[in-house]
């Protein structure tokens, strides 16, 4: 094929490919001076939520569909009363609004709302991002969407069915759970941190929460143990690995493989079972690896 004919072919293909989707974009501002809560049901695509200092809500929606008629079936419903804002996306099917996930059409939403609003948001396979709120948040992806939360004050409850979860800089309690996605936790400083997955890995670093309960396929905890802290870490499928700065702690550990420590422990020590203390004891560690090792390593 000559260069000219290749160029001609590209010119024909590129606009046609771009034309494969119809899109519609809307950008609106609405006053919301006393917004108490923000609830979003978004089964049709991505959702980004930003807390801001303005007493208004901005909703940016981008709809995509293979044709104009299908595009017109995509709907965004917005309701507000007494400071409670409810945004819902859905499809008009058989004359009815149905909030359900579909594969051939999408709506992506970005919502900026006052920081003081308590957030309750659900997506399906679209990623869910939330940041900058200070009254806590409940964030759920009911399918493969990822959940990312950062810079949130107050309790954060997070769930992703099979997607990853990143929770960072959360100034409050955390409850995270999922079926098969990994969970990354960093800079968490509430009273209780609880994360559970069935198959995913859980990795926590710089956690200053005094009560930490992690249960997952494999567990990694990196950082400094808090004085008086209680840590219960259980791995169903992999290792429990801790990378700690040298400081006193007490540990009860059990593994189907081995329990290995880079710290000089004193107490009952067997290859797969340990009940011991380091430097006279301190924060309590209960560690269990049902199909793996328990590894206590020194943080570099």
């Amino acid at each position, binding site marked *: 094929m000559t260069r000219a004919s290749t*160029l*001609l072919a590209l*010119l*024909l293909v*590129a*606009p*046609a490919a*771009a*034309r*494969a989707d*119809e*899109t*519609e*974009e*809307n950008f*609106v501002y*609405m*006053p919301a001076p006393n917004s108490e809560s923000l609830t979003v049901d978004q089964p049709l695509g991505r959702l980004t939520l930003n807390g801001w200092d303005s007493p208004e809500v901005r*909703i940016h929606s981008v709809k995509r569909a*293979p*044709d104009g*008629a*299908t*595009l*017109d*079936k995509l*709907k*965004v*419903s*917005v*309701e*507000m*009363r007494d400071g*409670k804002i*409810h945004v819902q996306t859905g*499809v008009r*099917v*058989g004359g009815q609004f*149905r*909030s*359900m*996930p*579909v*594969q*051939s*059409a999408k709506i992506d939403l970005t919502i900026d709302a006052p920081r003081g609003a308590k957030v309750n948001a659900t997506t*399906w*396979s679209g990623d869910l991002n939330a940041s900058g709120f200070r009254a806590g948040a409940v964030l759920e992806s009911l*399918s493969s969407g990822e959940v990312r939360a950062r810079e949130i004050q107050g309790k954060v409850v997070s*769930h992703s*069915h099979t997607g990853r979860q990143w929770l960072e800089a959360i100034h409050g309690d955390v409850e995270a*759970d999922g*079926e*098969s996605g990994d969970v990354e936790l960093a800079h968490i400083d509430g009273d209780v941190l609880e994360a*559970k997955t*069935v*198959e995913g890995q859980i990795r926590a670093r710089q956690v200053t929460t005094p009560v930490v309960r992690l*249960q997952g396929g494999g567990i990694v905890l990196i950082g400094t143990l808090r004085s008086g802290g209680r840590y*219960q870490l259980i791995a*169903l499928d992999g290792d429990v690995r801790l990378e700690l700065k040298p400081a006193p702690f007490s540990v009860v550990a059990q593994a189907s493989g081995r329990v290995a420590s880079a710290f000089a422990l004193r107490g009952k020590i067997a290859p797969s079972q340990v009940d011991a203390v380091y430097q006279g004891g301190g924060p309590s560690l209960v560690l269990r690896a049902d199909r793996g090792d328990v590894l206590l390593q020194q943080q570099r």
Partner: protein
Amino acid sequence: MTCSTEKLSALADGDLPARDAARVRTHVETCDACRRELAALESMKLALADEGRIPLEPRTGWQQLAERLNKETPARASWWKLGARWALVPAALALAVGGGWWRHHRSPAVSDDQLIAEAESEFRQADAVYVRALDKLRAATEHARTAWPEPRRHDFDAAQAALDGATEQCRAVARARPADGQAEALLFDAYRKQIAFYQEQILR
């Protein structure tokens, strides 16, 4: 009268005429299966009511906002601008425009049936992941169960049977309402309660 999930569903929604509603209620009094299913449907209705759905004030600014977000003839993305950016040869651009127009008008809208089938497919995929996760946890718990004392085994078995029953009820409701996101959410919530139960057993 024979058992009918559809009639139970309509009864729970208050959609049945008074005479039919009375007939269904009479049947429910004598049929354990229907009584359980109606209870599940009504609890689902309550759960949905608890979500605090807020009716729109007539002609509020928020309704206008919704209308703006859903207007029928929006500023759609100008695909031809994208084409023009690339089009160095006017003749090729004209062909591309023609091709795009043809593609647009040739392809029919995605039908309602197809959209519902897509939603059902999404729900079934998620359902399969829940079932797999539960199987895994059930196996892990069953292994641990052998070492438990009898009273704990007894309590565990009773709780497990209750949760299985509740999940089965939710599954029946979801099956009776294809592609109903709220019915599926109720079923998924039941799965998650079961998962939390097994995880708690493993933690103890």
